[in-house]
Structures are given as structure tokens and as C-alpha cells.
């Protein structure tokens, strides 16, 4: 195919991507609902089956977003990683503070484990959404 017959490359703002931002926001919503459930039962034990189900759905949504992200073509991974690095730093501080508050309030055992995993999903989902939203419009 000669150069003048090649189809025009769409600009970054015109390219269409899978709903990675919505999937990671969905994951965030799941762990927030789970967190509300755990907090609304404190200091009693929350129903762990519901919290675990929400955590699993959140983790699966995040995993799907991750798989789609890795398989993307025409996507600025440099910009994604640059933004992700800063955002995860901020979210790690927030997550560490929440974890500290739960430990300080004598949360332990399975409840603490679920909260920790929920915080892990939170720490990964927010930077994924932010970094993807920025990188999808990047030109490099």
C-alpha cells in the first residue's frame, strides 16, 4: 500500500478504547460499598460473605481492566505509567491511614484481611482510572 493510500491515523481524542475507566471505577464502587458495609457494622462483625462477594466482584472488574489495558495498541504507556506512579503514591498514603485506623480500632482476623484487600483494590483502581483517562488522549 502506498503512503498516499494509507488510511489516516485517528488523533488520540478520536480513537475508541474499551471501557477501562468504567471498569476500574466499577471496582472502586464495589469496594466502597463493601467498606460502607464493614463500617456500618463496626464495632460488631459485619456479614463477611457479602463483603467478600463485593471484594471479589471489585477485584474481577479491576483484573478485566488490567487485561484490557495490557492488550491495548496505540496507547501511550509512558504517560500512563507517569500518571499512575504519582496517583498510586497519593492513594497509598490514604490507604495506609485507613488501614492504620482499622488496626487501631482493634479490627482483626478475617475482617482485617477483607479490609486490607479492599484497600488494595482501592489503591490500584483510582490510579488506573486517572492514568487511563490521561493516557488515552496522549499523542506519544
Amino acid at each position, binding site marked *: 500500500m502506498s503512503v498516499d493510500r494509507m488510511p489516516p491515523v485517528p*488523533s488520540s*481524542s478520536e480513537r475508541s478504547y474499551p471501557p477501562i*475507566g468504567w471498569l*476500574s*471505577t466499577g471496582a*472502586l*464502587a464495589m469496594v*466502597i*460499598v463493601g*467498606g*460502607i458495609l464493614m*463500617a*456500618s457494622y*463496626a*464495632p*460488631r462483625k459485619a456479614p463477611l460473605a457479602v463483603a467478600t462477594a463485593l471484594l471479589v466482584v471489585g477485584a474481577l472488574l479491576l483484573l478485566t481492566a488490567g487485561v484490557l489495558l495490557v492488550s491495548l495498541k496505540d496507547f501511550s504507556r509512558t*504517560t500512563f505509567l507517569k*500518571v499512575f506512579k*504519582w496517583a498510586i503514591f*497519593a492513594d497509598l*498514603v*490514604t490507604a495506609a*491511614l*485507613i488501614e*492504620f*485506623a482499622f488496626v*487501631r*480500632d482493634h479490627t482483626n482476623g478475617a475482617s482485617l484481611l477483607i479490609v486490607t484487600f479492599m484497600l488494595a483494590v482501592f489503591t490500584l483502581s*483510582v490510579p488506573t*482510572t*486517572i492514568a*487511563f*483517562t*490521561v493516557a488515552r*488522549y*496522549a*499523542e506519544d
Partner: protein
Amino acid sequence: MTDTVKDVVSLMSDEPPIARPKIQVVPLKGLPISAAAVVFVTLAIAGNWQWALVFCHVAGGGLWTGIDLFVGLVLGPILGHLSIPARAEFAAKFMPKMVIIMPTVVMMTLATGFQIARKMGNLYANSPNHPWLIASFCVVGVMAVIALGILEPANIAVLFEMNKPVPNGELIGRLMKRFIYTAGITGLMQIATLIIMTRVATQ
């Protein structure tokens, strides 16, 4: 003033881009203030320090509610009526500050609020404040999803777009619209927070 006009024109024209100063997406000067707030909140929780817990919750919550209401219901509609270059010019100065301020005040409010509720026995199911606290958790949860999943990514994407040699005015307009609508929703939800918190304080 002349520089501002040149910057605005450069966003809209097809002429070669005019050199504009790079926008610092995360204002590094603000990080020590944010770090100090994190340390203060941690000390307040670790020491069960009543005054510090209440101070962080009231100061953080007041700022959070006030900023959300002002941005969502006053600044948002004004921005919506401005031209895209004017919105972009405003965003370049305003949004980097929000990147530092909002997570800090939200962290101060929520971390200490939960501790205060626990200390005062409001988390127990037989407390008259318990249903109000659950309502508050739900309001905060919805605001968190909107702010972290929609508003903040749009905010940061605008800043990155504006740092390009030739920013896409149409894209900035689209992302700013998302910012304006979500800020309006969180602003309205803060009215619910005000009702809930005043109920909790007076029961």
C-alpha cells in the same frame, strides 16, 4: 494581561503554537502542607486526642463542604457560560490547587470522623445517630465514586491536555463539562451532608 490573551488565542487558532509556561499538575509546594496534615491526623488517631480529632473533622469537613458547594453551585455554572479558552485559562490556575487541597481535606474529615463516631458510641446499632451515620456513609460513598472515578481523572486530563504544544480546545471543553456536572452533583450532595451532620450533632 497581554500574555493571558495570547495564551487564550493560541488554544483556538491553527497558527503555530505560542510558547506557554508548563502547568505543574501537582504543585510540589503544597505537598509539605498535605504531609503535615497526614502526620497530624495520624497523631490524633494514635493518641486518641479528642481536640485534634474534632479540629481535623470540623476544619476538614467545613472546608470540604464549603469548597464543594462553592465550586459546584457557584463556580460551576459560571464556568459553564464561559468560552472554552476562558475555561481553560481558569482551569490552568485552579485545578492544580484542587489536586492538593481536596484529597487532604477529605482525608482529614473521614479518618477523624470515623474515630469520633466510634468514641462517642454513634456506631452502635442502638444509638439514635446510627441511621444518620449510615446515611452519611452512603452520601460520602457516592461522592467518592464520582470524585475519584470521574471528576479527578477529568481534572488531571485537562491539565495534561493544556501542557501539549497544541491543546485540543474541543477535548478540554468536553472534559471541563464533565468536571462542571460532577462538581454540581457533589455540591448538591453536600447539602445532604449538612442536614445529616447537624442532625447528628443535635440528637
